[in-house]
């Protein structure tokens, strides 16, 4: 320890100690000379050897190397710029991707002590749910000793007077804000003392963004009453701007969970232990020092106790599982393949960028031949040379890292802004992102720096095979990424812009969102609604379906056709559905009243299941029941317009109509019909707040989503293209500067410009062509894999290949012609004096 301290003192006072040492040794010589003895040897070298004992020589050498590297890089700004750009792209993509992963998965939510919050799920043999009956949660709240607090949340939508769109409301336990450390921006938030039990007055806390958007940040809204689902609710406060709650989707407002029963017809919610009661998400705060496992065991034994008390309503052998509750997203095992693929893509881009830069460094080695030869001549060893070259790479990596981190942060910020993620997510890199980026930078420096340093230090760089290999490899990789992107974009576009197979422009969908209706009540409600709607001018027809087209729910069964499993979308409809949605009946008959075992299959399913045979009259097995095909309808991609392989089966709606959604086709423009249709529902039951939507809007929303997907799919390809262009630009400009004299001689002897161009570019044509061929083969192989993951991709879509190759060829030619053009501008007289 003492020795280390003294060593550091020597480092800090190096200059003084060095002077003292020099003085000592001078004196030594003086004395020796006085006694008639001569000392030989270089005093500087002797002093350096003595100084080695301090152990800091490497620092001096390092600084020397850094200074030298900085000088060399400054002397060739073009190369430096290209290198930094390459690295910025390669590292930036990785930083942005990891930054996003960090925000979603790794970084804790900005709440008090996020690490002790657990999110619970329940499991029993044959049963699994991530929500609980509220009464069960209250039981845990009352009896758990391993949790210091239990939080519950139930979300619902409420209709506010004067608002067309329903609001997103979170009903939360009164301790929600105090436990998570969320203070008010204005007024007060919910607190356990005042909001635990149901008061006369209904209260709500507004989300900060909702307050700004809807009330123009008006502070006088506090204490005012707003009408939600027709009931007066007093606004008591606005939550802090940075309050995240426990997820990524902040609601428009928070209400005490005790009020939930007021807005819903399930009055018995608090005492009902069965699945019919109020269902909530459950979190718990672990007592200090306990492990999650302890809480799981305690709650599981409490669950058994509860089952003993209410054997009919609760699950037998229920056990509780906990997961991290203090993070925005919890990674589930089914996300691993996707994460792996995204990660591999990012790494591939980094590798392309690095191999590209490696090629550039190698090319640069040629121009530095003289310098290296001189260094070897004055006694630089191979190790010293490699160290110097690696230091240069490290300096480049540091610059590229800074640029890459800036680029990554900007991309992340834009992503947050575009996708409308909450404000408390910060794109500023935290220590995890910084450490990750530094690691990536170091790996990159090794990747692109090591091979060229080894080659150059051997002074064997004339062997340009490695260079050609590097060019070929990166052309192949970028070509592959580009073609894959082209395939994805083409497949998505094809699916989006072809006819989805049903009418969506003139349709209004209406989800009544029943609360506590019995099947009989639902039946009479629909009958009344149908009558009223039919009498509205402008309404052409009305139909019912269990899964509304383009809606957010679907029923899927998996069946095997041939050797392939196929997901079949099941829809319960009434007979007027096909006419209303403009789906043609191609064969057989429509469904009719009393059809219990009859189904209509889509033409896409018929083609696969019974190729070249008339399917009408054929049996079809679903689960344990046998059905008979009575008709074939046109194919309609009802659920996801981008899935062109979708197949459907239609059944007659059965006795319970309560999950049904109404489809209304209008002859007039549907925008104007929204109000009369809503009014018609109000007249039947004013207590219901149906969700009324234009199907056109849902369609465009899906379309936008697919466009985003296409955009995201093409990003890696475009980046790879950019990298390849930069690399080729750099290589060709080196080829030009390397052969300036030769070009000058050729021009002086009368070579035509086209000859000069061909001469410069010729050396690259073979590796590029080989790379293209390999890249295409790779893309064909990759698309085989992609096709297994994403349906609807045709692996040999010629347009995608041609487009990708065309884009690639044009971009590469442009990149090459920029520096090649410089070759033509060479003045022969000056070129001959070059060097």
């Amino acid at each position, binding site marked *: 320890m003492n*020795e280390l301290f*003294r*060593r550091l003192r020597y480092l800090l006072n190096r200059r003084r100690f060095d002077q003292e*040492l020099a003085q000592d*040794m001078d*004196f*030594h010589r*003086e004395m020796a000379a006085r006694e008639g003895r001569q000392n030989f040897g270089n005093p500087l070298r002797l002093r350096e*050897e003595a100084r080695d004992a*301090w152990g800091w020589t490497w620092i001096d050498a390092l600084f020397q190397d850094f200074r030298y590297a900085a000088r060399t890089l400054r002397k060739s700004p073009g190369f430096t710029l290209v290198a930094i750009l390459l690295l910025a792209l390669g590292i930036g993509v990785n930083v942005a991707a990891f930054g996003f992963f960090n925000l979603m998965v790794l970084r804790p939510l900005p709440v008090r002590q996020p690490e002790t919050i657990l999110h619970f799920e329940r499991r029993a043999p044959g049963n699994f749910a991530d929500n609980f009956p509220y009464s069960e949660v209250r039981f845990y709240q009352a009896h758990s000793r391993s949790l210091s607090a239990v939080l519950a949340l139930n979300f619902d939508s409420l209709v506010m007077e004067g608002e067309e769109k329903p609001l997103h409301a979170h009903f939360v336990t009164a301790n929600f804000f105090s436990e998570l450390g969320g203070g008010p921006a204005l007024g007060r938030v919910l607190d356990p003392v005042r909001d635990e039990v149901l008061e006369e007055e209904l209260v709500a806390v507004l989300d900060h963004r909702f307050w700004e958007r809807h009330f123009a940040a008006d502070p006088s809204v506090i204490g005012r009453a707003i009408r939600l689902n027709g009931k007066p609710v007093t606004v008591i406060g606005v939550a802090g701007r940075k309050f995240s709650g426990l997820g990524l989707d902040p609601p428009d407002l928070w209400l005490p969970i005790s009020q939930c029963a007021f807005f819903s017809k399930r009055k018995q919610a608090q005492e009902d232990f069965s699945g019919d009661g109020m269902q909530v998400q459950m979190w718990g705060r672990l007592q200090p020092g306990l492990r999650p496992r302890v809480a799981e065991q305690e709650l599981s034994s409490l669950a058994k106790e509860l089952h003993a008390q209410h054997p009919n309503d609760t699950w037998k052998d229920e056990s509780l599982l906990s997961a991290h509750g203090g993070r925005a997203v919890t990674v589930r095992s089914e996300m691993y393949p996707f994460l792996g693929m995204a990660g591999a893509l990012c790494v591939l881009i980094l590798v392309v960028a690095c191999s590209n830069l490696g090629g550039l460094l190698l090319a640069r080695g040629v121009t530095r031949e003289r310098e290296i030869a001189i260094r070897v001549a004055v006694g630089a060893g191979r190790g010293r040379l490699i160290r110097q070259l690696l230091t240069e790479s490290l300096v480049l990596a540091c610059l590229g890292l800074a640029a890459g981190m800036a680029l990554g942060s900007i991309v992340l910020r834009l992503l947050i802004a575009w996708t409308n993620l909450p404000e408390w997510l910060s794109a500023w890199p935290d220590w995890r992102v910084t450490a990750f980026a530094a690691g990536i930078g170091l790996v990159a420096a090794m990747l692109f720096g090591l091979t060229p340093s080894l080659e150059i230090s051997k002074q064997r760089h004339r062997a340009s095979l490695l260079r050609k290999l590097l060019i070929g490899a990166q052309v192949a990789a970028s070509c592959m990424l580009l073609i894959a992107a082209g395939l994805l974009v083409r497949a998505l576009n094809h699916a989006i812009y072809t006819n989805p197979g049903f009418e969506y422009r003139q349709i209004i969908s209406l989800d009544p969102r029943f609360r506590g209706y019995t099947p009989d009540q639902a039946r009479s409600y629909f009958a009344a609604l149908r009558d009223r709607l039919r009498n509205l001018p402008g309404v052409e027809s009305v139909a019912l379906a269990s899964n509304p087209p383009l809606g957010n729910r679907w029923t899927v069964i998996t069946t095997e056709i041939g050797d392939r499993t196929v997901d079949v979308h099941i829809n319960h409809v009434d007979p007027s559905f096909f006419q209303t949605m403009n789906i043609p009946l191609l064969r057989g008959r429509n469904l009719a009243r009393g059809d219990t075992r009859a189904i209509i299959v889509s033409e896409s399913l018929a083609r696969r299941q019974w190729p070249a045979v008339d399917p009408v009259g054929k049996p079809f097995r679903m689960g344990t029941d046998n059905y008979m095909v009575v008709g074939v309808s046109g194919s309609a991609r009802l659920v996801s317009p981008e899935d062109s392989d979708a197949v459907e089966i239609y059944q007659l709606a059965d006795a319970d109509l309560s999950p049904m959604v109404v489809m209304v086709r209008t002859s007039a423009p549907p925008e104007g019909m929204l109000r009369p249709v809503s009014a018609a529902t109000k007249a039947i039951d004013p207590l219901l707040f149906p969700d009324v939507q234009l199907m056109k809007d849902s369609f465009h929303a899906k379309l936008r989503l697919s466009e985003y997907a296409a955009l995201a799919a093409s990003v890696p390809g475009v980046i790879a293209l950019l990298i390849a262009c930069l690399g080729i630009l750099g290589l060709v400009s080196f080829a030009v500067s390397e052969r300036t004299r030769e070009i000058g001689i050729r021009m002086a002897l009368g070579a035509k410009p086209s000859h000069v161009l061909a001469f410069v570019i010729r050396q690259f044509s073979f590796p590029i062509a080989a790379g293209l061929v390999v890249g295409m083969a790779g893309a064909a192989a990759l698309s085989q894999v992609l096709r297994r993951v994403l349906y609807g991709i045709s692996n040999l879509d010629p347009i995608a290949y041609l487009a990708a190759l065309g884009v690639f060829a044009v971009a590469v030619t442009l990149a090459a012609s920029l520096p090649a053009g410089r070759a033509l501008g060479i003045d022969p007289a000056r070129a001959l004096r070059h060097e």
Partner: protein
Amino acid sequence: MPKAEMPSGALALLILRVLRSGPLHGYAIGQRIHVLSAEVLQVEEGALYPALQKILLKGWVTSEWGISETKRKVRFYRLTASGRKQLEAEISGYQRVHEAIRTVLRTA
């Protein structure tokens, strides 16, 4: 002048030993060893100063300014308490090894 190779590690021992009787400057250390060894051992600059730097780092000696016999301001090296302890340890270690080597030479 007869010259003898210095066994490795012995130089530090000798430096510490000649400093036991009082502080000396660098040249005097070399001279003292030379004289005391009956002019057999010759300590060159190239060996003396690296060894001195190592010993300084270990904290066995400290340096202080003084005036030489030629009236020049030079650094004198003085043995510290830990240097004294180190010297004792090295001497006894050296004697043990020396005895062992002699035994081997006698009997083998």
